[in-house]
């Protein structure tokens, strides 16, 4: 349950937040700041963060959406995605 929850939380992180947390975990484990049992949990979390980062990086968006003043956004170029922005 908690594992499920933490996985959901990770998937909501921005790339910057995720990589920050990852580096924090790595340095804590390296410096032996956390007990063995916790370090195994942290290891799992770290691996999940790495996966999340890879997912973000491999999501090649390669498209441009258009925003304009006081209007709902229209999609431009590739037409395979829902517009995300509302004006």
């Amino acid at each position, binding site marked *: 349950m908690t594992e499920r929850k933490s996985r959901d939380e990770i998937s909501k992180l921005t790339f910057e937040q995720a990589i920050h947390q990852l580096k924090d975990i790595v340095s804590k484990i390296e410096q032996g700041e956390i007990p063995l049992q916790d370090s195994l949990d942290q290891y799992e979390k770290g691996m999940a963060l790495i996966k999340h980062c890879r997912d973000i*990086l491999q999501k090649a968006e390669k498209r441009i959406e258009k925003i304009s003043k006081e209007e709902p956004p229209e999609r431009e170029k590739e037409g395979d995605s829902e517009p995300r922005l509302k004006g």
Partner: protein
Amino acid sequence: MWCAEPSHSTYRALQSRAVVKPGAIVYNGSGQGDSRWVATKFMHTQTRTRIYTVTQVNSLVKEVLDANLPAWITVKGEITDWKEHGSGHRYFSLKDEESVLPCAMWRTSFARVKFKPANGLAVVVSGNIDLYVPQGRYKLIVEEMMPAGVGALQLAFEQMVRKLEAEGLFSDAHKKPLPKYPQRIGILTSESGAAVDDVADSVHNRWPCTRLYLYPVPVQGPGAAEAIAAAIADVNRRNARLKLDLLIVGRGGGSLEDLWAFNEEVLARAIYASRIPIISAVGHEVDVTVADLVADARASTPTKAGVVAVPNVEDVLSDLVHQEKRLTGSVRARHDISCEHLQTILASAVFRTPMLAVLNREQHLDDLAWDLGDAMRTVFLRTQKLMQDYYEQVARIEPHRLLGRMTVELNELKSRSLAAVTRVLSDKELKITAGENRLAALNPKSVLNRGYSITMNKQTGRVVRTAEDVQTDDLLVTELAHDNLIESRVTDRLKRDPAADTESPDSSDDGRQTP
């Protein structure tokens, strides 16, 4: 004065000048002399005796000027006496070394001037000469103004840079940090230009995982700067929903005039006010605009925007691999170390011979008991030796011998003092006996024993020494030895022959009466 009639030759010469077509005449900058044309006109119309109103004269002069001067004159000079009227019109003069030409520039013309004219600035202006009839004064009505030497836009750019720099808009302290891994980037540029694709490609080639949002804006022409500034403000206002973490503002290369929107104050201030970090990407490498200076970072061209804006995905991926290795490696190392530690603990003596600890402690206790005994013995021996030392010290003093010596000395002193006292006493005794003997010999009563007596006058009680001591019939008392007394009476006083006195020589000495 116009009434001075010029000679015919002068008249003809002036007449010939007056018919020269407008536009061929280059204004010489001189502020005087054109009244001759007025005179010519008067001569020509043969109206010497006619009387004119002031307005008629001024109107006539204006008519002559309009007819004979070129409609478009370009003049170079230095601005002086610059005035900005509340109406928006500008009044000033141009001067050279010798003369001054009054000028005016209407509000609509001045709005096209990009730079800021000021006193002392050398300018080239164009316009037409106009005479203001109510005052009889003429002015150059300026429609275009350019700085002399440098281009107008260049000057305007420099002026703007100086102004905004003085206000601190370019200060590093106000530069916002760029996000390290942008996820949503806004691009503010023209929808039709190449810049949007250049920026998008340069970003996505390095960092494909970001979303790009185009906010189309005009990037040149009147109102472009205002439109871009409004777009920046709009995006900032709506960013709670847009969630853009970076803006790229720019356009492709062009002339200084094309790029002018990016030098305007309104855009500079909008960039400065933005809470979202802004990268400027304007024109070619060499073009530097005010927007570049005020933006948080500058890409020299739109195609370089990606390098400035986003990391290289390859670098980030390899960093992720590195982090993964560190994480796995450190956890594995941690596990190995823990296992090793456990092995060490299991292999330790405690687990092999559990009684060892007890035995060790017993041995320790024995050692302590030994140590205690030794310590007590040492204390006892030290005390004993100390007592012996004191005893010997006391014995060395030998009190009994000291006492004996004192007794001998005392006895000696006693006998010596006794002897001394005895001697002194016997000396004194001898002296006393001798004195006694002598004293006894001197006692007058002892003389009585030898037959001497003492005669005293009974009346006077005195010893009678001479015959003169008594009178006839005086009673005498004579004392004899052994306290016998006799009483007698003087019958006569006689004087013996002195030869007879030798019988008792010492009687005269003692005063005693010879018997």
